[in-house]
């Protein structure tokens, strides 16, 4: 996963950002670099790229006191650059507490001095700064462009043992218009073992994903943070997949609701169907048992056990779960979660007892609701019994009592194939901080995308659509991936 290294550039003791290295373009973002460094540390960053722009321009270190102060008041691992020219300079920077020194101009103008540092301090502590403009190395605070080509420069130093390189693309630096992914990819292709730190142009999470896909491990960001273009987080890329969950309705140990799969020996066998969905890439399964007998717990436990023996993905069991004993029987036989519905409405305290005993993570609050005269109302008994209870109030209470996930089925949408209840979903998603599963209404590929993008759902559930073979789990996931939604493939 690509890591972001925050940058602080200093002019006259203040944090600034330039555009394409132009000193007249400097924007001051904060007058207190030490405080900014502390904020980066508090947000979880471990690294800091500190640049003395005054030093770079004047050719000698100016802002060493700021380095000292940041080192003494944070635990950040800092690389320092800008105006580091002599052996004494390097010693002063390390004495001030920097973990690494970045040398750019000096490496271009005085290779012997720079190689001396590399030999003395080692490849872990000396970073080569390769600042590139029109394919050539720029120096002196980028006020001059040398005649040395980037790859000649890198060839030379990689051969001498350089391991860490910060490469700044000056044309894109400070523009927020996107980094030169191709440039960095070319560098990595040429020097596979190099620890390349990209720099310049980062303006969005999209850019970050492009860099990550190209195999770039770290990038420096300044302006993108200062202008809140990306979250203040060293690893802001989202990697948790949105889940696709087939739902199986079960009665007396058999799947009901027509299943028209071909190639299944027995379309009504829940175990066989579970295995098929698991093999096809389902992220989770939900079993809803609609059996109404006294022997229910026993038959359901047996089913759970058979499913757990056959698949190695998580699954939830629901339908009439009403006691601690029920939950215990399901979990002991291999279920990962149980969903509670009517029993929780009739006796809300059961949610607390279940969550206390087994943990919130295995208690799913299942809610069926209908939109009536502009208000969402909760229904029980598979949607047959109105309660008059407000959907949102009930979900809030259920989560407060310890439910670790919400499975919301809109009765207005269920079976219509017209899409999920995205407005209500989005409202639930904003209201609670546990994952939400969208249910009811899936008919087209775009409905899944809308459930995640508009409905802000964490998972989407469908039954008939998958059972009838109208689309496969893979179809849904491929479509979502093409539309920029993270899925497990």
């Amino acid at each position: 996963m690509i890591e972001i290294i925050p940058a602080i550039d200093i002019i006259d003791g203040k944090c600034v950002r330039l555009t394409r290295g132009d000193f007249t373009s400097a924007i001051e973002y904060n007058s207190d670099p030490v405080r900014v460094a502390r904020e980066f540390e508090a947000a979880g960053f471990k690294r800091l790229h500190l640049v003395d722009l005054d030093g770079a321009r004047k050719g000698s270190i100016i802002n060493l006191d700021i380095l000292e102060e940041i080192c003494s008041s944070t635990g950040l691992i800092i690389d320092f650059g800008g105006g580091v020219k002599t052996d004494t300079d390097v010693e002063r920077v390390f004495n001030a507490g920097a973990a690494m020194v970045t040398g750019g101009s000096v490496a271009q103008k005085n290779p012997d001095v720079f190689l001396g540092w590399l030999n003395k301090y080692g490849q872990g502590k000396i970073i080569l700064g390769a600042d590139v403009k029109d394919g050539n190395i720029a120096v002196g605070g980028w006020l001059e462009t040398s005649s040395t080509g980037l790859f000649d420069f890198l060839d030379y130093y990689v051969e001498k043992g350089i391991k860490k390189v910060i490469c700044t693309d000056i044309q894109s630096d400070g523009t927020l218009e996107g980094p030169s992914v191709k440039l960095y990819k070319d560098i990595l292709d040429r020097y596979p073992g190099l620890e390349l730190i990209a720099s310049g142009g980062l303006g969005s999470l999209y850019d970050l994903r492009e860099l990550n896909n190209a195999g770039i491990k770290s990038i420096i960001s300044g302006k993108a943070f200062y202008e809140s273009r990306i979250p203040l987080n060293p690893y802001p890329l989202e990697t948790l997949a949105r889940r696709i969950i087939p739902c199986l309705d079960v009665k007396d140990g058999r799947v009901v609701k027509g299943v028209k799969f071909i190639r299944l020996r027995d379309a009504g066998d829940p175990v066989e169907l579970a295995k098929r969905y698991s093999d096809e890439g389902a992220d989770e399964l939900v079993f809803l048992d609609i059996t109404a007998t006294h022997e229910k717990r026993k038959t359901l436990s047996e089913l759970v056990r058979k499913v757990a023996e056959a698949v190695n993905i998580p699954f939830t069991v629901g339908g009439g779960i009403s006691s601690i004993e029920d939950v215990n029987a399901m979990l002991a036989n291999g279920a990962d979660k149980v969903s509670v519905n009517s029993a929780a409405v009739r006796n809300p305290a059961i949610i607390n007892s279940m969550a206390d005993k087994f943990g919130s993570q295995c208690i799913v609050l299942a809610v069926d609701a209908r939109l009536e005269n502009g208000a969402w109302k909760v229904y029980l008994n598979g949607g047959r019994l109105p309660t008059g209870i407000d959907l949102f109030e009930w979900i809030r209470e259920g989560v407060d009592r310890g439910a670790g996930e919400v499975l919301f089925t809109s009765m207005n949408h269920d079976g219509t194939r017209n899409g999920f209840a995205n407005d209500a979903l989005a409202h639930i998603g904003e209201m609670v901080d546990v994952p939400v599963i969208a249910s009811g209404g899936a008919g087209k590929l775009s409905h899944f995308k809308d459930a995640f993008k508009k409905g802000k759902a964490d998972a989407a559930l469908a039954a008939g659509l998958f059972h009838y073979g109208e689309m496969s789990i893979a179809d849904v996931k491929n479509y979502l991936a093409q539309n920029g939604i993270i899925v497990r493939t």
Partner: protein
Amino acid sequence: MNIAIIDFGAGNLFSVANACKNLGYNPVLTADEKIISRSDKVIFPGVGNAISAMKRIRQKGLDKVIPSLEQPVLGICLGMQLMLEASDEGNTVCLGILKGRVTDFRRRNTGNIKVPHMGWNIIDNLEGRLLKSIYEGTSMYFVHSYYVPDNEYTVANSYYNGIFTAAIEKNNFFGCQFHPEKSGEAGIKILNNFLKL
């Protein structure tokens, strides 16, 4: 080979046991100190919360036994978390096999996130014996509200509004935050790597 799955109370131990069986082993679920100590491999799953789990572990005297084990031990989910010194969850003192403190995801001060971290997430920066021949970026199934921060024994990372430890390895102690028994074929491979140590 004798495999002990430590059973100290509620939770889904069935799936872990079943995965071992599918790999050709016959594990026992037990809280018996002698059986655990004599086993070739010990699996230490944990479901539920750190407070009640540590309470039960102490009641059964396992708080002394587990850290002194010399055969390979695999902590899964809460089992891995309990290997640290302490947990934010109920401010609980844990087994102290590894330095550090298990931290509440809600304490991360950057943005709003759903807790628990539930579902399939990638693991990367893979090292060590447990994750042998697993591909970088493979997805695993996670369900947890607390996390082990990145540390010197981390052998896999994952990301949820920041970096955290997905797996650890310290001498004979191994751990994974995800559920290998619920993570498809790749998860089973990790269990197999452990059982083959």
